């Protein structure tokens, strides 16, 4: 590979070979004389790999859950549920391999082909940014999503969501959520409703063996009862998009990302607070009797505020999507505002969206758009405060030379 890299140096295909080379080996070229010599160990590739490590447990869990939901919907949910006996079985895992793995393969395959084509055209290095996106995409779509739809959406998301802005680090919107939003608006029948969330429900619909594929939020939106307990919701034994169901694993992944300082704890904490506040407001509205049991919002509004965190994609979105360092807010104060509004708006859309009782991806995309504005005002606010401080500051004359004094005044 070293030889190949040398051989193709300066040729048109060089970026493609360099990408494979850096992926497989440590770099074989040294820093230029006169340039920077000290570099952080947490480069882009390391950062991306850490996020992927945090996602692997969720992927494995989702593969088992795909099978568990499929068989439970057909045979009825087991009494005396035990994880070893009913969940971690080869049958369940096999459904996961057949249904979830192709999504991962298509997402990575198509996405990386697009990245390579753009790298060759533009003549820059292939960026590692897609490694996380490619892993997130299969986890946020329904399990029965047709593969060609995913492929079309990935091409759209990577080209329109990222490459037209200049590639990794320049994108305004989170590419994985751009892909999700494209799928949602382009093929709504495959992205919402009461069938798509459990493997097989679409094929069996209308027949004698028809099974339900409704999510908890879907039941709530129709003011219906559901059979999932709180621990089911927390640990993720519920239908939903492939990898979003387990709030428990999202929590572990989030702690891991905070511990490794990859993701911002400010965004996560404030997003949790935001969703709790919105949930509490809705609970209050119900308690005050402003909204009757016949209202179509009753089910979602009366849902205990803290339970919003453990159903649907809110936990997954907060941990893995909202914390995207490129599209999120950059300033610390901005991160609080940005995160809070994501949680707040997510729950709001969830309750009021008549067609589809979930809004995390819409809320995060919306706040992606506003993140630079939030940062702008945070920075302006800081500048104004310091200008005021400067105006009030008494600069004592000292017997040092005037230049040092000027410098001091500037840095107040």
């Amino acid at each position, binding site marked *: 590979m070293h030889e190949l890299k040398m051989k193709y140096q300066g040729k048109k295909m060089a970026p493609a070979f360099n990408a494979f080379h850096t992926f497989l080996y440590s770099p074989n070229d040294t820093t230029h004389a006169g340039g920077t010599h000290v570099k952080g160990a947490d480069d882009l590739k390391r950062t991306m790999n850490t996020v992927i490590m945090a996602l692997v447990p969720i992927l494995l869990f989702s593969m088992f859950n795909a099978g568990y939901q499929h068989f439970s919907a057909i045979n009825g949910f087991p009494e005396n549920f035990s994880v070893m006996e009913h969940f971690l079985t080869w049958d369940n895992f096999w459904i996961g391999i057949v249904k979830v793995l192709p999504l991962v393969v298509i997402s990575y395959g198509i996405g990386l082909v697009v990245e390579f084509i753009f790298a060759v055209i533009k003549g820059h290095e292939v960026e590692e940014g897609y490694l996380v996106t490619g892993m997130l995409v299969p986890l946020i779509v329904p399990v029965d999503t047709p593969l060609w*739809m995913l492929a079309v959406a990935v091409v759209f998301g990577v080209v*329109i969501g990222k490459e037209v802005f200049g590639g990794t680090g320049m994108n305004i919107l989170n590419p994985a959520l751009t892909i999700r939003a*494209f799928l949602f608006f*382009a*093929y709504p029948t495959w992205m919402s409703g009461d069938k798509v969330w459990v493997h097989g429900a679409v094929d069996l619909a209308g027949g004698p063996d028809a099974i339900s594929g409704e999510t908890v939020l879907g039941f709530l939106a129709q003011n219906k009862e559901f059979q999932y307990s709180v621990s089911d919701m927390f640990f993720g034994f519920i239908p939903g998009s492939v990898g979003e169901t387990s709030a428990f694993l999202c929590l572990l992944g989030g702690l891991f990302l905070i511990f490794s300082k990859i993701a911002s704890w400010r965004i996560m904490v404030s997003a949790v607070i935001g969703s709790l506040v919105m949930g509490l407001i809705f609970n209050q509205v119900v308690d005050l009797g402003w909204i009757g049991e016949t209202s179509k919002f009753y089910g979602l509004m009366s849902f205990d505020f803290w339970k919003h965190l453990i159903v649907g994609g809110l936990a997954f979105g907060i941990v893995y999507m909202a914390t995207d360092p490129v599209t999120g807010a950059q300033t610390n104060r901005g991160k609080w505002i940005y995160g809070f509004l994501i949680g707040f708006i997510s729950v709001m859309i969830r309750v009021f969206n008549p067609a589809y009782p979930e809004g995390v991806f819409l809320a995060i995309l919306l706040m992606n758009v506003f993140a630079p504005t939030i940062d702008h005002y945070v920075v302006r606010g800081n500048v104004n405060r310091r200008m005021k401080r400067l105006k009030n500051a008494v600069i004592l004359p000292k017997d040092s030379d005037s230049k040092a004094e000027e410098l001091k005044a500037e840095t107040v």
Partner: protein
Amino acid sequence: MGLLTKKDAGLILDPLADNNPITIQVLGICSALAITAELEASVVMAISVIFVLGVGNVVISLMRNIIPSKIRIIVQLIVVATLVIIVDQVLKAFAYELSKTLGAFVGLIITNCIIMGRFEAFALANGPWKSFLDGIGNALGYGVILILVGFFRELLGSGTLFGVPVLGDPIEKTGLYATGYENNGFMIIPPAALIVVGIIIWVQRSRNPALVEEN
């Protein structure tokens, strides 16, 4: 081109590509986004604008020496409004269904920036023949983009062209739909037009780097 001098031909041909009103001057975007979900509507809109802009440019050019410059915008508006009402009435008489689809957008040709733009920039300063060519050229440039966007949006969004199914029947699952293909609902909504126009601009500028603005 015996009929036209080289310069006159340029008046018609330039707006079709390198000086296109939509992709280069970025005028007339609103209607390009709103009515391009169907190819038929795009074609009718393009013809309407060709008529209004061609005739309007000639009328303004003939009156250019007698219009007091302080009230020229009002005079221009009256000319456009008259022409647009003619178009609207003709559509209502001969293509009622279509005029309902186009709805307010025929009336809104009045506010189409391309028309006022050409009146101000060209017809007020040039003779009737040249103004006529300029009007036709710019309206054609607008129409070409409209039809291009309409083509892709109707084909991908509804699987039809001029309302005729070309990809098979989505309900009976014939043709391409038998393989599991489905219409792309995203293409029906106006934001898709924004993205299609964006892609056209992108392709045009990467083919002709001279069009890329320095910033």
